[in-house]
């Protein structure tokens, strides 16, 4: 015990460093502890004890910090396990929805860019792409307007990828709606899943997406023999914008007040 300090205050301070859970809940536990120790000390002083000895005895009766913190943390986990799990799932679903919506946006932007440039720019095969004869026959059959195998492959890639990205975007919209409904039905936040978790995941995911697609575009890589460099550039730019937007949300999700960081303050 630190000499010269109120044993009750020292105990509450030590307990505060061992408790986990939502800040409001932890603050409540500490307030209860503080009031309990004050009551116990007052009673012992009223019985004739020295104030310092009374406070020390009150602390001893309350129990070792590790034992009490362990019991309180078990109770907190039991209370908040389900809502915290729901928050974590909702956060992951929100990030997944953002990713799918970004894919839909890539599809729309790619179509727009195709109108401004050409299908070959966006979906044209990389220079090193090999086209097996059987595939050529298939592409020429399903794309009768194409004259060469390369043109047929390009048109087929444009059709398949645009459809795939549109489906992803639609799925993203549905998932986003589900997330909004879940968010509205949820109770108060537990604080166990920080508000910055979703934006952080999104920044990392979109950032990696922007970097990897930029590298693929710059290298004019062959992916599944179908993807064009132009699409990679569009995807990279979309991911970069999404990462930037997620970064803004992340900054705004940080607690503005310094006092939020510690339950005792």
């Amino acid at each position, binding site marked *: 015990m630190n000499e010269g300090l109120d044993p009750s205050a020292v105990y509450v301070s030590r307990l505060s460093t061992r408790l986990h859970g939502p800040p409001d809940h932890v603050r409540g536990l500490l*307030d*209860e502890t503080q*009031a309990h120790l004050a009551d*116990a000390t007052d009673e012992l002083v009223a019985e004739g004890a020295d104030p310092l000895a009374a406070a020390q005895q009150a602390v001893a009766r*309350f*129990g070792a910090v590790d034992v009490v913190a362990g019991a*309180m943390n078990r109770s907190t986990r*039991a209370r908040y396990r389900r809502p915290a799990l729901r928050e974590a799932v909702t956060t992951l679903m929100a990030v997944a929805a953002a990713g799918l919506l970004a894919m839909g946006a890539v599809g729309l932007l790619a179509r727009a860019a195709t109108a401004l440039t050409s299908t070959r720019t966006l979906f044209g095969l990389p220079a090193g792409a090999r086209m097996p004869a059987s595939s050529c026959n298939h592409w020429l059959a399903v794309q009768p307007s194409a004259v060469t195998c390369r043109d047929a492959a390009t048109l087929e890639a444009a059709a398949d990828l645009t459809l795939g990205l549109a489906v992803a975007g639609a799925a993203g919209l549905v998932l986003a709606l589900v997330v909004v409904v879940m968010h509205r039905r949820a109770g108060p936040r537990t604080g166990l899943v920080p508000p910055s978790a979703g934006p952080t995941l999104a920044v990392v995911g979109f950032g990696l997406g922007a970097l990897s697609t930029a590298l693929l575009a710059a290298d004019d890589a062959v992916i599944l023999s179908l993807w064009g460099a132009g699409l990679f550039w569009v995807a990279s730019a979309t991911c970069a914008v999404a990462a930037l937007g997620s970064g803004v949300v992340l900054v705004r999700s940080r607690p503005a007040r310094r006092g939020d960081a510690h339950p005792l303050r």
Partner: protein
Amino acid sequence: MKRDATRGHLDVLLLRVLVAGPAHGYGVIAALKRRSEGQFDLPEGTVYPSLHRLEDAGLVASEWATVSGRRRRVYRLTPAGEASLAQKQQEWQRFATGMSAVLGPGS
């Protein structure tokens, strides 16, 4: 009484103490010690999680109030808590009767 034995029956003991009326944590623990004549010796801080568990189960309700200048959480028994207590008291009576019949002097 050993701590483990006390802990196993803590919930019903806490519910019984609250029959007398709403009380804050220290009041509940003090009443428990007084009524048991000091038999129930638990680290007082570990009683609060039990109160919170009873609250999560809907057997106890609590609200914050300022009493004697201190912010305290005051606990009270809910109707579900009263019903649970009545059931547990019956179970305990049957158990105690059975134990007495076996361990009593006439057995």
